[in-house]
């Protein structure tokens, strides 16, 4: 009798546990849902005062003027520019490091490279910002003129920050290229570079693209590092060496004192950011799903 009761208890524990675990697993998707709902909820009131057209296409951001202007176009362009600079600088370096790690990776030097990448990935963004502020900004000032605080400085720092992101995922892609394929290429007399450029990289292309998209997402979403080196001037930055403000910088700067429509406009900026990143991440999921199906 006691055994039956004990068994019933164990069975109940079993199904109860399963329910709890299911709930834990659901938290992520619930959280994503809530984030979208809350942010949109705070963002939508903006539309009562500002037309979508003005918000997205006007470069005038002057929330404290009378009448106030809420155009984030300059920030969209600045975010875009900064990300572009970061990608242009980061992709060659990341790809080189990835190729080195997967194709030449036998010696101690490769181990040091791997450790360096891990450490770079672990450095907090505020530290990157501090480094950018005290070392990169004067450097840019000396070479390119201007203030030094600029979209260019922000792009440079972002490039360093996204190196690990791109390298890690690309490396997986490169190492998944079948060794048979590589051997066939070598057996035909191809040089190392010919095999890399004609067989390995094309075969790993979808993984490489995914990694770049992830790096892009990281760059667009970065706040503290760009804030300290970008200059934060809420106007349209004509050249990369001008000071500018990205979407993220806009949110963190004004949020402390914004009220009403100003505040909802900031949430609108956040919603835009969130939307872009969610789309980018969904693309990555799609790409890897398609790759898996191909196999």
């Amino acid at each position, binding site marked *: 009798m006691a055994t039956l009761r004990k068994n019933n208890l164990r069975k109940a524990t079993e199904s109860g546990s399963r329910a709890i675990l299911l709930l834990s697993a659901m938290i992520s998707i619930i959280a994503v849902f809530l984030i979208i709902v809350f942010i949109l909820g705070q963002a939508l009131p903006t539309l009562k005062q500002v037309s979508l057209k003005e918000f997205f296409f006007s470069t005038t951001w002057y929330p404290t003027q009378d009448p106030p202007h809420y155009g984030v176009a300059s920030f969209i362009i600045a975010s875009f520019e900064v990300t572009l600079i970061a990608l242009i600088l980061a992709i060659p370096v990341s790809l080189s490091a990835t190729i080195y790690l997967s194709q030449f990776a*036998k010696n101690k030097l490769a181990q040091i490279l791997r450790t360096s990448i891990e450490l770079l990935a672990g450095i907090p963004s505020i530290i990157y910002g501090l480094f950018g502020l005290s070392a990169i900004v004067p450097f840019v000032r000396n070479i390119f003129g201007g203030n030094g605080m600029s979209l260019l400085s922000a792009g440079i720092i972002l490039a360093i920050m996204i190196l690990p992101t791109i390298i890690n995922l690309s490396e997986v892609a490169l190492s998944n290229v*079948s060794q*048979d*394929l590589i*051997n*066939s*290429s*070598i*057996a*035909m*007399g*191809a*040089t190392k570079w*010919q095999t890399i450029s*004609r*067989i390995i990289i*094309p*075969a790993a292309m979808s993984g490489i693209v995914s990694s770049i998209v992830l790096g892009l997402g990281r760059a667009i979403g970065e706040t503290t590092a760009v804030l300290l080196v970008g200059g934060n001037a809420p106007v349209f930055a004509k050249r990369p060496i001008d000071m500018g403000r990205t979407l993220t910088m806009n949110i963190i700067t004004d949020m402390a004192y914004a009220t009403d429509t100003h505040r909802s406009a900031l949430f609108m900026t956040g919603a835009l950011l969130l939307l872009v990143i969610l789309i980018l991440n969904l693309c990555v999921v799609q790409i890897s799903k398609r790759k898996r199906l191909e196999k």
Partner: protein
Amino acid sequence: MKDNKILFEVENLNLWYGASHALKDVNLKIESNSVTAFIGPSGCGKSTFLRVFNRMNDLIEGVKIQGSIKLNGVDINKDLNPMDLRKQVGMVFQKPNPFPMSIFNNVAYGPRLYKKYSKAEMIEIVEKALTQAALWDEVKDRLDRNGMSLSGGQQQRLCLARTLAVNPEVILMDEPTSALDPISTARIESLITTLKESYTIIIVTHNMQQASRVSDTTAFFLIDENRTGFLVEYGQTNEIFFKPRDKRTEDYISGKFG
């Protein structure tokens, strides 16, 4: 033996994987325009020995070679660049592995490594190679289809065409039909017989019947008590199979082991 010139001369070849002695004191000569088969039980080092001819063992960490192999009198380890060697000595692997590109580009891959060809030149080369590999008729209408969409046997012939397109002197084949069905196997075997008029072929096979069907000369390898491979007997195929000089050869042929 026919009065053909000696293509490969192997003298006292020894090979180590790190500390493990994989091949011991191999000596043999390969004639041009012949088919040579390497046979022996698993693990006796015949695939390793095959890879010595195009220096594919260089890709493995810790490999050491002693002795000499000469191709047309030139030492392939000391006096030849491995990439130039592989242009002259091609290889077909056990598992068919076409590149993930069109049939045309698969065959064109090799020649394009060395120089730029015009479209017309390339088409000519591709057609010639596919014809030699007895694949042209089957794929001539779908050259832009992905190479991996072909059947197993077709893929292997594609790999052969790929190798032929570079116009090597020698073709190495590492168990080329062990992953194929009997019909595809038969097709490849008849190809080998045709190809030997223009090329020299060395084939590793664990199938003795195949060796006796296609090869002119056969080399029989065994593994000794130290797990080192060595050459037991090397000679004309019908002698090896019907009048072997070494008792171990006779035992292997008659199926007493292996």
